[in-house]
């Protein structure tokens, strides 16, 4: 998976200066962790930067010193390297500190009005200490898993027609009409099929939500309407649960995978990126 951390990479002067800002003015935030001491994690950060903690109270921010400018690149390899490095640091912190609140890519704290970036990180940790500790307590011992469910639309459309006398009748009319009229019948038929498929997808979505929710501590669910074209991912779930309970979730997903027309992708365990804010 490549989350063992990007290797050290020489940063070209052009890239540094093109990002703007002076060196050291910002603190790139990887995550918040339950750790109250200053710790060094080594040169595992983006562009080989030294990663270390800024503690405050019972928490710390895992950071590297960066220019006060976001990481931007049109080079896919460069961008992918940065993202993998970010993932790698969050994973390392997860292993070392136990529970982490992952930050989004390119979260860079800056200095402002006479206060440096490090100071701002520290005061932010103190001000939010209670809420952050609450969140950490909720996530302790758990990991995030991703579930995506795809639906084979053509197969479903055929089923929908076969099971509806009304739609079969419409199809008959279409076949036995003149070309102009047949076109209109086709429009009507396709609209009717799409509406029926949306309705069925919605029912399935609720069913799967219930099945999955019963096996997880927390759930974020997203869906989209079937667009009528081929195989399509309809549902995306982020699941929070203990690793030991992933097998139970896997059983439910296996049953869904075995259903006609559905296929499931199950990924993880990930640090809990999707559960850092109250749902």
């Amino acid at each position, binding site marked *: 998976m490549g989350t063992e951390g990007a290797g050290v990479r020489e940063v070209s002067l052009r890239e540094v200066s093109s990002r703007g800002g002076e060196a050291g003015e910002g603190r790139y935030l990887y995550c918040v962790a339950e750790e109250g001491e200053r710790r060094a994690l080594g040169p595992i950060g983006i562009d080989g930067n030294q990663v270390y903690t800024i503690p405050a109270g019972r928490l710390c921010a895992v950071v590297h010193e960066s220019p006060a400018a976001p990481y931007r690149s049109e080079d896919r390899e460069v961008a*992918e390297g940065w993202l993998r490095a970010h993932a790698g640091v969050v994973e390392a912190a997860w292993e070392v500190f136990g529970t982490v609140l992952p930050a989004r890519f390119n979260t860079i704290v800056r200095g402002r009005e006479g206060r440096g970036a490090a100071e701002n990180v520290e005061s932010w940790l103190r001000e939010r200490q209670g809420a952050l500790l609450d969140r950490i307590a909720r996530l302790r011992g758990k990991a*995030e898993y991703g579930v995506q469910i795809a639906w084979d639309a053509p197969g479903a459309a055929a089923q929908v027609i076969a099971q509806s006398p009304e739609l079969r009748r419409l199809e008959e009319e279409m076949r036995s009409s003149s070309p102009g009229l047949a076109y209109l019948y086709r429009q009507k038929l396709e609209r009717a099929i799409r509406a029926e498929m949306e309705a069925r997808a919605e029912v399935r979505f609720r069913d799967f939500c*219930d099945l999955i929710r019963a096996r997880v501590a927390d759930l974020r669910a997203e869906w989209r309407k079937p667009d009528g074209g081929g195989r399509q991912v309809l549902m995306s779930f982020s699941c929070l649960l203990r690793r030991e309970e992933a097998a139970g979730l896997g059983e439910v997903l296996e049953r869904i995978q075995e259903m006609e027309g559905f296929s499931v992708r199950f990924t993880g365990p990930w640090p809990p990126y999707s559960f850092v804010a109250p749902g």
Partner: protein
Amino acid sequence: MEPTREGGGALVDLLDRILVRGIVLDADIIISLAGVPLVALNLRAALAGAETMLRRGALGRGEAPRGAPEPEPRGWSPAGPALR
């Protein structure tokens, strides 16, 4: 069914999370980006393409599991049908 962290699909799942999930700090202490970061659009589109190629064996890095859904570009509706 076992969860996986291998393959293009898993990579997209991870990078998706890093790009759009995670802690967001108060605007006054962070460097903010106007609009969607260029890296997000290009990379996701490129990775969606890579996943397709993986499944068809074109990249020679092994097949993704059969039946695994292809990663999709964003366009999700978090609203959708009301959840109990």
